[in-house]
């Protein structure tokens, strides 16, 4: 009869064969948190009376939400988490300026294929593309993991998304995942694991895969699983088991080869249209960055479009690499010079304006085209501002034109 990859991974962790729908308590191989969720985690551990986390080697902490802190209170809360990291002997602690947690954890090779990983951030589903089970939880759940080494899970059923064909030209995995969110809907994968497979996924880079798994939560999913392969091992700098699904699952199919550039229009991530349908919409801001699309290849593709051109005079273009490692590589290759010469503003690595707190907050009636993952009401600022989600290519083309623009217009 076989099992899904996620069933197999949870079974290994539980030490027995588990089945879909079962509630299980499982050891967690690696847990991570950031400066946003950290303070409530420290509080919860205090209330539990826990003086020592069970295994500091299995914990990662990254400061990415308020980089650098934008208020005295943000700084005070960070200091509390920093003190916690030091006193607990957590060595996988990355202070301000190292990058976004979902990027830094795999870059440092802290996670392994075939394992159970839990992060105190909803986008922890990103790491599922490294052939592991990774899911997001809130602060108290993460505190329980630090206290006991484990958590409870409902073994999810798997919804497979078979991506046939290969992405062409100015198309990217962001266009593909937006099309998938449109098909599945904002709650079409609630309580389920998504598994992305097919020729398009096999052909794409590990960074492009991260973009897809990152948005699994926008369909309600627990994780965005992909089979590990040589690219996965190279990214992590380590190998591990290749866990595969060998049972029948509910499956939807999407043809990556016939896509055109996509955009998620304001209010809902599933409100997806072709860029050509909204081309010409005025923008005030363009944002290239976040855990969805702040990687080297995103910067590279955007720089190709903007090289030798200028950002539109009425548009602010904000570029924020997802990690210091990415920023150093982009600097070395001249990409950051291209952006700055074009008139872009370079921000400090971290979550940046994605969650509407600093480094590019939108004013009343302002419009942003962004490579990030959420376009909810007020997500990036004023409740009457709006956000269009798109690929790095579409964002760069739009920054040049001052309006939403099809990147295929640029050679």
């Amino acid at each position, binding site marked *: 009869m076989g099992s899904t990859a996620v069933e197999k991974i949870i079974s290994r962790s539980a030490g027995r064969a588990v089945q879909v729908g079962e509630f299980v308590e499982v050891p967690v191989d690696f847990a991570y948190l950031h400066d946003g969720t950290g303070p409530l985690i420290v509080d919860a551990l205090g209330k539990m009376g826990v003086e020592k986390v069970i295994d500091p080697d299995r914990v990662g902490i990254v400061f990415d939400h308020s980089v650098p802190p934008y208020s005295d209170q943000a700084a005070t809360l960070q200091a509390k988490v920093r003190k916690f990291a030091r006193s607990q002997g957590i060595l996988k602690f990355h202070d301000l300026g190292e990058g976004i947690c979902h990027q830094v954890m795999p870059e440092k090779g802290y996670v392994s294929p075939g394992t159970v990983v839990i992060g105190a951030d*909803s986008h922890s589903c990103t790491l599922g593309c490294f052939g592991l089970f990774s899911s997001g939880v809130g602060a108290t759940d993460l505190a329980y993991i630090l206290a006991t080494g484990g958590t409870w899970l409902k073994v999810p059923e798997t919804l497979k998304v078979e991506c046939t064909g290969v992405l062409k030209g100015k198309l990217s995995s962001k266009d593909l995942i937006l099309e998938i969110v449109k098909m599945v809907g904002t709650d079409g994968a609630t309580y389920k694991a998504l598994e992305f497979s097919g020729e398009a996924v096999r052909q794409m880079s590990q960074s492009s895969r991260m973009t897809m798994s990152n948005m699994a939560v926008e369909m309600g999913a627990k994780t965005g699983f992909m089979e590990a392969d040589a690219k996965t091992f190279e990214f992590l700098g380590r190998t591990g088991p290749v866990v595969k699904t060998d049972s029948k699952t509910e499956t939807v199919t999407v043809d990556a080869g016939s896509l055109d550039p996509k955009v998620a229009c304001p209010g809902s991530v599933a409100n997806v249209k072709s860029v050509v349908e909204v081309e010409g919409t005025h923008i005030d801001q363009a944002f290239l960055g976040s855990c969805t699309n702040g990687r080297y290849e995103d910067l590279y593709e955007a720089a190709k479009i903007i090289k030798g051109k200028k950002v539109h005079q009425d548009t602010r273009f904000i570029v924020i690499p997802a990690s210091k490692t990415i920023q150093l590589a982009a600097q070395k290759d001249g990409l950051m010079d291209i952006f700055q010469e074009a008139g872009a503003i370079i921000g400090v690595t971290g979550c940046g304006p994605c969650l509407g707190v600093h480094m590019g907050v939108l004013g009343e009636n302002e419009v942003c085209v962004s490579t990030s993952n959420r376009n909810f009401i007020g997500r990036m600022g004023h409740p009457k501002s709006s956000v269009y989600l798109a690929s790095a290519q579409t964002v760069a083309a739009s920054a040049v034109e001052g309006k939403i623009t099809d990147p295929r217009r640029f050679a």
Partner: protein
Amino acid sequence: MLKGRVWKFGDDVDTDVIIPAKYLRSVDQTVWPKHVLEGLDPSFSLKVKLGDIIVAGKNFGCGSSREQAALAIKWAGVAAVIAESFARIFFRNAINNGLPLIECRGISKLVEEGEVIAVDLDRGEVRTNNGMLRSVPLPPFLQEIVNSGGLVEYYKARKKVH
């Protein structure tokens, strides 16, 4: 048995509208209930009274993992949230903090804003002016966490190490 006045919301109520991120980095936690659901109704925190009940459509609490969303609703005095379905992280956060959630298919069409409804948490029943609905029961595993008063109390009672 809970009895409370209903506030109605639609589908996909996300945690950014429940509590915008600009209020999260606050040392003073009493700030959160003052801005609860501000993204959808700026005056909600002034109107909501102790013991009121939120009724919503599908996928309530989608988006960010911020636990402040469950805390803001609880500390604003809301006695329970009843929805067609919940996003999974919000669901866990509410259970972990002792905010009662009831997943109840058909509820959003059956009740009206301002109506007083009765909720029997033990039996999983919701009584409205237009009839009674049964909720999707919580699995025993989670009922145990709820009965303990949340995950912190559950931990203190068991102190289990993996």
